[in-house]
């Protein structure tokens, strides 16, 4: 089976999933827009409609037609947010899957109206994708299948399937035996809390900063490692030496950073909305905290240092079982049929 992943490489998922599917013997290729900021890996550069429309047209006419399955990310297809190629692909007996990841489909006003804690409430200016309504309509009316990366999106896409964020668990394997990257074992140093927001408003970074400041004001030996705008590899490297990770405190479901930090064996704090818990396995080892409870959650976790190894180990097991790219790839392949 020849599988197209792209053109957006959200969190490196297109590249990771394509690579994993190749292990199953499929010709899976991640064709993605170049996004040097995070430097996620992928296979080939997607021609741009703006800078190289001729190459894009040629790609659409020739190579695109050789794929059997299209796995589109973040509400965009080969021809962009208009999704004008989707009917054409379907007409030519291609299978089209959409993988929605958040602001590409979330209906912010409904989230604000229905949930007391949400990123949409504080997200200003609005970060919603301009084509979100259109992408939702096309996906619901046309797509062969719809995946979502987080369970909070299920309510906006009836019949969609939760496909966990794929990560390359084995890349973290070499780090498992090292509690601290720098080899420190000194328990008197400040506790390092790592937080790596791709978007401060959405992740609730101000609350994380405020909670750390409040703890410091209470003479708790804690420091915040705030990672922003870094290459993904460098960010992961910087996380190795952290003790605790905070993913987000507003969204209500966990992101890729939680999966990665679990794979690294870190205790992770992340807000999980009560009504979304049923979508996760019972052994999800995340510590849920929202802005109001974050400071207390951090303090409890800091004081429960003896429990970190057990929490970390549970996280590793969970990440390996649920988020490993091979497991996710296999699951996606089953859906492709």
């Amino acid at each position, binding site marked *: 089976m020849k599988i197209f992943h792209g053109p957006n490489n959200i969190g490196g998922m297109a590249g990771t999933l394509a690579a994993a599917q190749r292990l199953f013997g499929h010709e899976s290729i991640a064709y993605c827009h170049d996004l040097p900021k995070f430097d996620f890996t992928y296979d080939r550069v997607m021609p741009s409609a703006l800078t190289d429309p001729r190459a894009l047209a040629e790609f659409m006419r020739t190579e695109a037609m050789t794929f059997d399955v299209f796995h589109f990310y973040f509400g965009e297809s080969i021809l962009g*947010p*208009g999704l*004008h190629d989707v*009917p054409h692909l*379907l*007409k030519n007996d291609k299978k089209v899957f959409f993988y929605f990841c958040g602001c590409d489909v979330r*209906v912010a*006003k409904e989230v*604000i*109206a*229905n949930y*007391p*804690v949400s990123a949409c*409430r504080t997200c*200003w*200016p*609005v970060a*919603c994708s*301009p*084509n979100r*309504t*259109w992408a939702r*309509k*096309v996906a619901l*009316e*046309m797509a*062969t*299948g719809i995946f979502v990366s987080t369970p909070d999106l*299920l309510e906006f896409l*009836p*019949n*969609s399937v*939760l496909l*966990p964020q794929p990560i390359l668990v084995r890349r973290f394997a070499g780090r498992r035996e090292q509690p601290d990257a720098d080899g420190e074992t000194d328990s008197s140093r400040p506790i390092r809390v790592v937080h790596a927001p791709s978007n401060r408003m959405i992740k609730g970074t101000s609350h994380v900063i405020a909670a750390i400041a409040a703890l410091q004001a209470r003479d708790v030996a804690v420091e915040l490692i705030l990672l922003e705008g870094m290459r993904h590899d460098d960010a992961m490297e910087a996380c190795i030496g952290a003790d605790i990770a905070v993913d987000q405190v507003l969204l209500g479901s966990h992101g890729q950073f939680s999966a990665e930090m679990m794979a690294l064996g870190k205790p992770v*704090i992340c807000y999980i909305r009560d009504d979304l818990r*049923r*979508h*996760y*396995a*019972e*052994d999800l080892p*995340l*510590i*849920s*905290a929202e802005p*109001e*409870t974050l400071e*207390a*959650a951090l303090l409890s*976790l800091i004081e429960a240092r003896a*429990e970190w190894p*057990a*929490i970390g*180990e*549970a996280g590793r097991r969970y990440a390996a079982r*649920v988020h490993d790219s091979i497991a996710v790839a*296999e699951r996606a392949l*089953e*859906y492709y*049929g």
Partner: protein
Amino acid sequence: MRVVMVTDDVRIDRRILAESKSLALHGHEVIIVAGWEEGLPRHFWEGPVKIERFRPDDPGPVAEDYGFSAGASVSHASSPPPEPEVRPIEPPQHSVVSIPHPHGPGRALAWGRESITRLRRRIGLMIQKSRTLVVVTTAIRQTARRLWNRTTAALVGLVRAGHDCAIAFNRRTGTTVGEIGADQPQDLAPIDEMSSAERKLVARLRYLDPDLIHAHDLPLLRVGVHVKRALGIPLIYDAHELYPEISTLTQGEKAMLRARERSLLPDCDRVITVNPMVGEEFVRRYDIPAPLIIQNAVSAPDGFDVTIRHDRFRREFAIGKSEFILLYQGWLATHRGMQKLVQAMPDVPDTVHLVFLGYGNVQDDLRALADRLGVGRRVHLKDAVSQEELLFWTASADIGLIPYQADLDLNTRYSSPNKLYEYIEAGLPMLGNADLPFVRNVITSNHFGRVAVLRTPDDFARAITLIIGEGRATLDRYRENILRRRAEFTWSVEERRLLQAYDALLEPPARVRRRSGTPDLADARQF
């Protein structure tokens, strides 16, 4: 519910802020899309309200029409997919995704759909081939329609203004302007006849995806109607004034705006205006149900106590305890009677000081005029202060002035200025122009001060001398009257009416309760 208010104000009107805050505190999500000016922040929060300044040259992400007929050619969607499956994330267990079979019972239907799509595609191809012809004919048609709309709008307005314009301009039918104006209210201008900025604003508002659009004043009503129609949502038109009556407009512009207002009003689910007189004028002029009246009332800021006397002007300008302070606050503009006020100052007692508190571009002129008349010592100018500070200053005067000149235009004549409510909220006795019927009515019927015809500097001098001559005891009596009736003029009264109107148009917002609780560390500790 998401409410989007749209205004071209750069300095956002107090009324808009008050309404938006009330709605936000009532549980709605409120976004104000306002005018933009270089150097001002594009996006910010004003308390619980989100504010965006719209830049036509850089509108930000906008909703686009991607328009191909979704679903038309796809047989996959012909049979309904099964209900969603809810399960925890586990390793794959051979679950099946819902992919409807392309050869199921809906095949005939799908064949029909495909045939229609093929036909439409063929027609589309033909149109593309004659693209040039289409472009030219469309341009001609649009230009003709635009000319027709503008001409009839202007003429209809003139007819309604009492001018004799019974010209048979349509040779074929011999129709006169008056006849057309009576039976043919114009329809909404097509989107392609709007200005580029308006079109971009419509696209931006559609991107924001409101549940209700609240258009402030006539210039943005057409945008509001387009958004209402595009999204199928309620529209509230908040007429802060009789916009077509603004004195700076030409007769043609006034006529065009009247015609536009008339044609757009049927699309408004609720019309709001500022006082009963303007409301009655809307009914008389456009034959619509009585608008909802939301007055420009104000609520006192935190820490303000109306029973306490304040003395900020005396301290700032070294004014003696026994001297009187007359205050004009708000927009300092030439047409508001301020020059006459200054001109009156040589003829009022020496114990009277005049303070201008506000913003505008006539401060230098007023200062020069006062100096020329030899009353510079008794005329003071202070820049505008924040809304939180304002009432503390207002309450530091002895008499509040409302000198608007009614002969300027109907809009001014029927006005109910912000300062009227600010003076009441601050407990400040007033001297108002008797030519302003609403102002006169409020002041006289409640004994909040004096009114007098204020048309010439002599009128001002006489009225000021008279009210000062009544002495402090009379001013105290006016103040007591204000304190007794003040609660009827506060924003909370207007707020209730506004919220009722919203509740009638929207589902009342679900009161989202915040949870309190402890972090569930236990989730992790079980391991």
